[in-house]
Structure formats: C-alpha cells, structure tokens
C-alpha cells in the first residue's frame, strides 16, 4: 500500500503522539483532537480505508470484502508470522521458548484489531471493577493477583454511554440480568436475530438462563452516515465491506482526522522510545517508515496504544541500563490475560445456515455472577457458528483425518455435514485470572524482519478458569442436547487461548509499587507517557473487551485534557 500521510499533513508540532490506531489509539485521538489538541498517530500497518480523512457525506468503501483467503490465510491485516513472529512457552522452566509462530497476535492495520473483530460490545458488569474485594482471600489464591480497578463502573458509565454512541452500538435495555445500570438507551435496536440463536433459545431457557441479543457495534439502522448491516455473513474475523461495523477506521479515527487536528502515518513502526537520562521523560520515538528508513518523531506527551503485547515489547526495547522503561514496580509485561475461551459444539441434522448473518447475535451471562461464591466465576456465553468454507474444510480435515476420512469420503462429508448448516457452538469467554507469572518480554534470539527482538509470551492458565471450565462445560453440552443437537462435545482449547482478547501488562492503580500506570493512565515513573485500553486492565472480566477498551481510552484521553475532571471531556 502507498503509505500516504493522512489527515492534516501541515501539522508539524504535536501535543500528543499516539502509537497505534486501533480501539485505544482511535479513541485517544478522537477525544484529544476534539478538544483542540494536535495529535500525531503512528500506525505500523497499512491503510485500507481510502478517503478516511476526506469529509464526505458517506465514507468511501474500504479495500476489504467477502474474501476469506486474504483475511484469514494470507495475512492482509494480521502480522505474518514469518515476518513478525512471536514465541511462546508455558513457564520459565521450559527454556527460551516452546514454539515460534502466531500467538495472541493482533491485526496491524489502520483501525487495528477492532477492524476485523465482530465487535460484540457488552459492557463489563459493576462487580468486574471490584473483584479484589468480592473474591476476598480467593483473590490471591494460587498466585493470582485479583485487585479492584482504580475506577468504578459508576465513574465509567457516562464514558460507556458516550462510546456506545461514538461506535454505534445496537442493543436492548433490560434484557441482560447481569448488566449494570445505564444512564441512557442504546443508540439503535438489535439487528436481525440469526436462526441459530432461535434454535437454542428454548434449550437455554429450559435451564433457567436468559438469552438476549448481544450488544454489538454494528448498524441495525443507518447511523452516522453509515448503512445498516445486510447480514452478508462475513463479520467474524473480517472487516466490513460497506462500513456498517463501527470500527475505528469509520468512527473514532475518522472523526479525529476530520477535525483538522490529527495527522496519521500508516506503515510507520515505532521501535524505540527515547528517554532522558533519568528515564522519567520521553523525548521522542524512533520509527521505521514505509520505505525502511528511520526517523524520530516528537511531541509533548506520548500514548502507548498498540496492544498489551506490543506496548510491553516497546518498553523492553527501550530499556536503559537493562531495565524496561517505566518499570520501577517490576510489573511491566506481567499479568498478561487472554480470556479462557471454551467452546462446545453441537451437531444438528437440520439446516442452520450459519453463513448468513453476523456469525453470532445472542448470548447469556448466567455463568458470570461473581457475588455468588458457591460456584466458579465464568464468562459470557455467545451462540455462534462456523461460517467460512476454507476454515470448515481445514477443521474437518484435521479432526476427521485422524479417523481415516479422506478422498471421496472427505468430499461427501463436506457436502453432507456442511459446518455452516450442521454446527452450532456455545463459546464462553472465561475470565482469565491475572498472574504475575504470565508475562510478555523479549525473546533472547528470535527477531522480526527488521532484526528487532520479538515478543515472547509466557502463559499458563490458572485453576480459577480451569475450574470454571470444568464446572460449566457439562451444562453447555446439555443445553445443546436440549436444543435438538444429535451430538455435543467440547472442542479442544487453544494453547495459549486463542480468544483474541488480550489484556494486562501495564495494569493501572493508585499504588506505584503494585501498578505500572496511575488511575488516569499516566505512568507512575514517566511524566509524559500514558498507557491505555486493554493494557491497563487489572482484571479481565468475562466479557468481550472492545467496548471497555475504547471506553477506558476515552477516559484516559479526557483525563489528559481535563485532569481530575475527565467527565468534562464528554461535553
């Protein structure tokens, strides 16, 4: 792609420099530029939103499409594991690494990982912000580090409402029994309910659970100059071809660019933060440009908004005297959380046509009641499908190849047992306990295409989420049976979890000994550096995180503009 400078190219002095243009970076840029701050956004990936910075009644269409090959198999927006690998191990005793490849990676593109998320956007529940208190002694059992957040649900609620309008969230009030109080309605009503959801509705109800249309940042009606979703079937892991999905490229980031206060550089990889001798002030960032040359950019303040893995990696790459920047607490890169994704799959004999619609439209939250200490704390369960053909074929080939299925029988299986028609999945995003032993640091030997050390993940699940899995999976399978499935079974878990929900590494809190960033997002150690979004999360909740990522970023940015009274930023 041509790495054209976007937005106001005339700007040459900046109040803030934002590293990353996704859910966090877009929200930071939108709030700062809205209040007159001059913002420079550096994005490592290419731009596929032509006209993103052009003021027109309808935004031009993106360079995406209903194209499984380039999105899921040819790394159009996902980092190519050959060029930008990550390494993985369960624990330090495994040695330098167990494997090299694509682990907990996020899209690198203008708009970030939210670009191809299906953008289910439930809020976290009020109890999620005070799990340290609720769990009591269990908060530190087995090495876990559950703590209360430094901000409450009530403090964030107006920011949630603001963000829901910014992104364009569809949903219904009063249908989720675990949801917190709201100060206003959703911007738009729920969209088309997929048949698969109706197929399991009675089964879920028979267990006393409450299925509801899951809030989603996807237009059910024309909204904010963007069309309504037409249920094309390519929502999971695919960007929207008609801009109906409220991703940063069509919401926050575009709004920032249209203020005239924002400038965006795609294909610009920040590889080092430059600090003063004491390591308490950032003086610039070094980046590799689209043509491979290096350049230094400066601003008054700096925001890490790549993602929890890359944020931590950058701090380690910027180490002085062998110590990561901003790491007096020793917690940079620690408490990595990935959500413990648990999937049960039902085989149905009728036609479910899961390839039409948004992939998943409904959910239930009855497994997530932290105040009920008589059972494990689970997460939201979404009703979902397997819509894509290559993915289906590869899955069948892998699973049934072991049973000797090949050739003509394999072909017959694909025809008769069409996964989009026969498979229905219940997926629980189990809360992942924070553990200081789950970390991001630098691999000692493996490098990316520019010769820069790659991120190494050290990750092992905690009994907290494993006990929740064991407790709830039998019920999830029985729900499928009660819904008419002929078979039900748990699919193998990812190792590490492949939920795509990545949190922690720069947890925020009031105490500089137990947190990396302050409650307003600023680093305890560095006066002009901020963390934001999922990196700040002290705990992971059991809900899809994108809305809360965007909301926390909006809160941090508002705090930058209005210290001590961030709510003024919403006015």
């Amino acid at each position: 792609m041509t790495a054209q400078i976007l937005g106001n190219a005339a700007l040459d002095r900046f109040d803030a420099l934002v590293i990353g243009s996704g859910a966090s970076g877009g929200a930071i840029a939108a709030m700062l530029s809205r209040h007159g701050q001059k913002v420079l956004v550096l994005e490592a990936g290419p731009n596929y939103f032509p006209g993103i910075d052009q003021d027109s009644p309808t935004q031009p269409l993106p360079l995406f499409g209903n194209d499984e090959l380039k999105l899921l198999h040819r790394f159009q927006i996902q980092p190519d594991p050959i060029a930008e690998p990550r390494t993985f191990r369960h624990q330090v005793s495994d040695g330098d690494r167990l494997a090299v490849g694509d682990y907990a990676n996020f899209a690198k593109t203008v708009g970030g990982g939210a670009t191809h998320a299906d953008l289910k956007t439930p809020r976290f529940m009020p109890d999620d912000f005070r799990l340290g208190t609720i769990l009591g002694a269990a908060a530190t059992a087995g090495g876990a580090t559950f703590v209360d957040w430094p901000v409450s649900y009530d403090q964030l609620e107006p920011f949630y409402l603001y963000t829901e309008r910014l992104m364009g969230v569809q949903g219904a009030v009063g249908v989720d029994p675990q949801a917190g109080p709201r100060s206003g309605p959703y911007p738009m009503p729920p969209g088309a309910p997929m048949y698969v959801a109706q197929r399991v509705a009675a089964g879920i109800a028979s267990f006393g659970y409450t299925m509801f249309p899951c809030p989603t940042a996807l237009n059910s009606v024309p909204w904010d100059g963007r069309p309504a979703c037409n249920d094309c079937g390519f929502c999971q892991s695919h960007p929207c071809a008609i801009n109906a999905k409220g991703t940063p490229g069509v919401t926050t980031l575009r709004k920032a660019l249209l203020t005239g206060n924002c400038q965006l550089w795609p294909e610009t990889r920040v590889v080092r933060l430059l600090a003063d001798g004491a390591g308490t002030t950032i003086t610039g960032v070094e980046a590799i440009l689209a043509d491979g040359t290096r350049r230094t950019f400066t601003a008054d303040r700096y925001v890490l908004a790549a993602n929890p893995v890359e944020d931590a990696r950058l701090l380690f790459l910027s180490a002085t005297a062998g110590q990561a920047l901003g790491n007096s607490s020793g917690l940079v890169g620690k408490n990595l959380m990935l959500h413990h994704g648990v999937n049960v799959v039902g085989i149905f004999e009728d036609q479910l046509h899961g390839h039409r619609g948004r992939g998943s439209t409904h959910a239930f939250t009855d497994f997530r009641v932290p105040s009920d200490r008589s059972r494990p704390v689970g997460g939201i369960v979404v009703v979902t499908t397997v819509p894509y053909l290559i993915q289906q074929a590869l899955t069948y080939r892998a699973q049934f190849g072991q049973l000797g299925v090949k050739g003509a029988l394999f072909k017959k299986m694909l025809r008769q047992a069409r996964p989009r028609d026969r498979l229905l999945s219940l997926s629980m995003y189990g809360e992942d306990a924070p553990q200081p032993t789950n970390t991001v640091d630098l691999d000692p030997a493996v490098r990316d295409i520019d010769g820069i050390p790659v991120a190494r993940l050290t990750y092992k699940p905690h009994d907290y989420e494993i006990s929740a899995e064991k407790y709830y999976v039998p019920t999830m399978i029985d729900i499928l049976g009660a819904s008419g499935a002929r078979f039900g079974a748990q699919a193998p878990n990812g190792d590490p979890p492949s939920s795509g929900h990545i949190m922690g590494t720069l947890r925020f809190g009031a105490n500089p000994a137990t947190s990396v960033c302050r409650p307003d997002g600023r680093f305890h150690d560095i006066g002009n550096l901020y963390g934001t979004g999922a990196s700040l999360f002290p705990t992971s909740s059991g809900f899809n995180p994108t809305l809360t990522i965007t909301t926390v970023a909006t809160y941090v940015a508002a705090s930058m503009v209005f210290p001590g009274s961030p709510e003024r930023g919403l006015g």
Partner: protein
Amino acid sequence: MTLVGAPTRRVFLKLVGALPATALLSYGCGSDGPRYLTDTERRVLAACANAVFPPDDSGPGAADLGAVDFIDTLLTAFEHDPPRLHAAGPFSGRTPYPADDGSASKRFPQDQFLEFLPLSRVQRAGWQLRLYGSRGTPGGGPNDEALGPVIGLRDLLRDGVAAAIAAFPMPIDKVDDSFLQGIYDYVPDEARTQIQLLVLQSLFSLPEYGGNRDGGGWRILHHYEGDSMPFGYSYIDPATGRILDRPGAPVIGPETTPDPEPMDDQIIGLFDAASAVLGGKRFY
C-alpha cells in the same frame, strides 16, 4: 518413507495395463499468466489435488476446479505488479446493488477482486521469505541462525514433487491420471501438508485467485452463494422499518428449501466416533 495404503509397483503394473494416451498429455491450464511449475509438476500436483478432493458423481475434483492454476498463481505472485496475493474489493459483481425498497436492482458493481493490492514493506518481506525461502532472499531470513533457514514454498513443492516421482513405484508417464492420484501418498510430509492446504484454499476461495473455477467449489457444497456483497441477506422494509429476510436465503427464519443432501448413516457414524474421542454426548 513407508506409506500405508500406497500401491506397490507390482499392483500398479497390474492395474494400469497399457498406457492410456491421455497420460502423456500435460494437465490443461486455463491461465495465460507466468508459470513456475513444469508440465510434469503440474500433472503431479493435479493428481494430488484430486486425491484430496476427487471427481465423482457429485461434481468435479479439485484439479478441474483450478487447483493447479491457483497454486502456480501463488508461486508466481511476485511476477505481477502488484503481487497477486491480496485481491482488492470490496465487491465482485456477482450480486447486485440493492434497490431502495431492498429488492435487487439491475445495477451490478465491477469485479474489483480482479485488481490486486500493493503490499507493504513488511508484507512483501514476509511473502518473499515464504515463497522463495532464505536461500532465495538476499541476506536470508532474520532467524536463519536461531531457528534454521526458511524453506520457500517454491522449493518445497518442487522438491516434494520430485521426491514423490522418485518414490512412486513406476514411471509416471506410464500411468493415467486416475492412477496417478496414488502419488499423493509418496509426497514428503511437509510438502503434502502444504499441498493439502493449498488445494482446500483453491476450492473455496474467490475464483479471482485462480481456483474455484466458475464458483464450482461453492456449488458442490450446496446453496453456498459465495461473496454476497453488496446485496447481502437482509434488508430493512421501507414501509415498516423491520429487518426482513431476502426470499430464498433466510437469516432469521428456517431454511426455505429442502435439505439438498442430508447426512447419511456413514457421516453420522463419523460424528459418533468423533464425539466419543472428544468425550462428548450422543443425545439420540
């Protein structure tokens, strides 16, 4: 390498008898673009493609659906500018724009998937390594020392096909295409894994990538409509404001057409076995 189920030379000689004339013909290719694969390599890969997804009464096999063209297009991606790796979009023109009332208009978009997107510097570097390997990349790969060199897909397939030909129990020009399918079992593991992956990608990806000829891969899997934009599957009724299903392709309601091919006892038996392996439940 010993492979279970692969025919021995003696069995093959007995099976094939006299050499059919077609065996000497190169595998047909609809692509006029640059080629990396030789005619022999194309024929072997076509046989392998049909081993993965064979022709039968339900429709053509992977070879006739363009698997080899798909693979050769990938292997020669950098001989085009931009490289033929990421189709542009967003639309193919296979479905129309919706009219104001939600019905199909008579306006169709251009096929924008025929255009390909330029790659970023990092994307280009990754694909260069994937296709040409450390050996074919100036300066090699970044982790050659730590992890060993990257074997490029071009070399992997060429060497894999050569190894399969060498191991096959009789000269490949002595067997017809149908029997040549057995050569798939002689392909070294790593190359066979890649061939399988590429064949499945070729069957079900957009036809603009060179496989799935005329959407034939989609059709075999019954009423799969392929890319559906900009028409999609639902629309807002302008009279009521309600979201409705498009006729014949429901999102909300049950399928409106009879099941084209229900699961038979053999397929259900496979799920029964898989469920048992996974510790699942059979409910009826």
